[in-house]
């Protein structure tokens, strides 16, 4: 395993794609900070530095989808996966080393964003609004969802020997997950009731009647399922993390556990299938 990780990390450090995504992550952080600074000036308010600190989580799925499919897919397209097997490495070890390499790369993208966000925030804004514990707990969710994303995309990339196919499937999956979570989030945040105002002839509010139920508000089992999907999907977790900051932070212990379940499910199935796979 160490040999594969050592060779893999040296390959990652030389990878133009890795450098590009890292640079884009850092640049996105600067963009977000400037945006927040503009809001502060416009509304004449002070926003905490930890606002927008995890905004990168929303896009980390897309970044990992691109990186995993190209990084793992190159081993197939250049045929270099054969060198690993002929060198005596077991398939389980090859699979796990790829998972570790992609996960660490994903964390590096987030780290690049956070560092850039921190430095730019320190210059443009102020210190964190609350204690470091919240930041660390939020980071834990971020790390676990990054590994969960990696598990999903390494699974796809390891089972499709065609690099282009795996890149398309990974990207499509990441977008579908993201848009699904956005839709779920929108549904869940819909108000249960609309205010029912009573107006006079001039259009002024003169009183309130019983609130009107929102027909689009998901209720009962449907709401339970949507809540579960929002918590289980890494994209749903990412949206939740990106919107959290200290003032309204409440740590969801279930989220890292859901990520763990995804990691175990996809990696276990992936290893079982990869061990039986006929390679060319």
């Amino acid at each position, binding site marked *: 395993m160490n040999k594969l990780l050592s*060779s893999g990390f040296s*390959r990652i450090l030389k990878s133009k794609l890795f450098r590009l995504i890292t640079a884009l992550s850092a640049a996105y952080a600067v963009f977000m900070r400037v945006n927040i600074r503009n809001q502060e000036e416009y509304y004449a308010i002070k926003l905490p530095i930890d606002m927008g600190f995890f905004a990168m989580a929303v896009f980390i799925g897309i970044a990992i989808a691109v990186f995993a499919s190209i990084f793992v897919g190159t081993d197939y397209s*250049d*045929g270099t996966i*054969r*060198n690993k*097997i*002929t060198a005596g490495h077991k398939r389980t070890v090859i699979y796990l080393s790829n998972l570790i390499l992609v996960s660490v790369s994903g964390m590096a993208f987030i780290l690049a964003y956070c560092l850039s966000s921190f430095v730019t925030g320190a210059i443009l804004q102020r210190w964190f609004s609350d204690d470091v514990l919240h930041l660390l707990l939020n980071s834990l969710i971020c790390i676990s969802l990054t590994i969960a994303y990696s598990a999903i995309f390494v699974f796809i990339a390891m089972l499709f020997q065609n690099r282009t196919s795996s890149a398309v499937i990974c990207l499509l999956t990441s977008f579908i997950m993201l848009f699904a979570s956005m839709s779920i989030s929108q549904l869940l945040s819909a108000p249960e009731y609309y205010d029912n105002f009573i107006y006079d002839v001039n259009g002024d509010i003169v009183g309130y009647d019983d609130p009107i139920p929102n027909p689009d508000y998901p209720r009962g089992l449907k709401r339970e399922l949507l809540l579960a999907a929002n918590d289980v999907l890494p994209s749903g977790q990412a949206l939740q993390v990106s919107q959290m900051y200290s003032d309204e932070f409440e740590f969801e212990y279930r989220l890292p556990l859901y990520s763990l379940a995804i990691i175990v499910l996809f990696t276990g199935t992936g290893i079982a299938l990869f061990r039986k796979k*006929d390679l060319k």
Partner: protein
Amino acid sequence: MNSKTEFVLTTDALCKQYKHFKALNGLSMHVPKGAIYGFVGKNGAGKTTLIRLICGLQEPTSGSYTLYGVPSQSKSISDCRKRMGAVVETPSIYLDMTALENLRHQYRILGMPTYDGISELLKLVGLENTEKKKAKNFSLGMRQRLGIAVALCGNPDLLVLDEPINGLDPQGIIEMRELILKLNRQRAITFLISSHILDELSKLATHYGFIDSGYLVKEISAQELESACRKCVRLKVSSLSVLCRVLDGMGIEYSVISDSEADVYGNVGVTALITSLASQGCDVISMHENDESLENYYVNLVGGKKEAASNE
């Protein structure tokens, strides 16, 4: 091959089935230590499938193989593969890396403690002056040689090459041949080379295995093949019917090649034959000695097997 011969690789009734297609059908072969084993067969005969199985890229449907005496079902077969190198179909190299980077990468995969020997490897395959040139800008021959250099990392005892001269220009073919011979002689590396370019293979191989439809039709050493290939004299005459009549009369074995040519086997008394032909008004237009080539041997072998199969 005598019973004391040490084998690097043996296969026993190896089968590989893809859905309804049998790529290997009970293949048994023996690659002696130090040999250059030419694995001969047409496209789709099962050559690459066998190599994939040996390299651990695929699992056999049934049957087994041994690598340095270790059975394929053994857990230590992975460790055994460290003693072999392979170039399967296309060279396994990162195209966005230089030759040096590719070798360093392979050294890391193998867990070699230092990069000692890389410059010698580059020199051995003639890529010492490629410097910062990426492998994607290499010619096919250079990529093939880099693939071999990568396979040579870790000093393997067995090198498996799948169609190593496919697509190479004449100069590249000569360089590849010289490299294989050098590695076999200087480093005592055993080679398993699959090819359907028989003429080239005949310049290298010390042993042959002929495969057809996933089955090993014949396994033979180059020496045995040489004695099995019969010498003949090819005659071009003005009248084939007269030639046939004279040869039949002299009790000499022959085979008709065209309406004016025939191969005459055995020791031919040239003076007596030409005198007889001349007496019956048949002119000898040309005459030259002809060895039965590896190609003829292969065609006869595979054709013979097919005829036998169709007669059954």
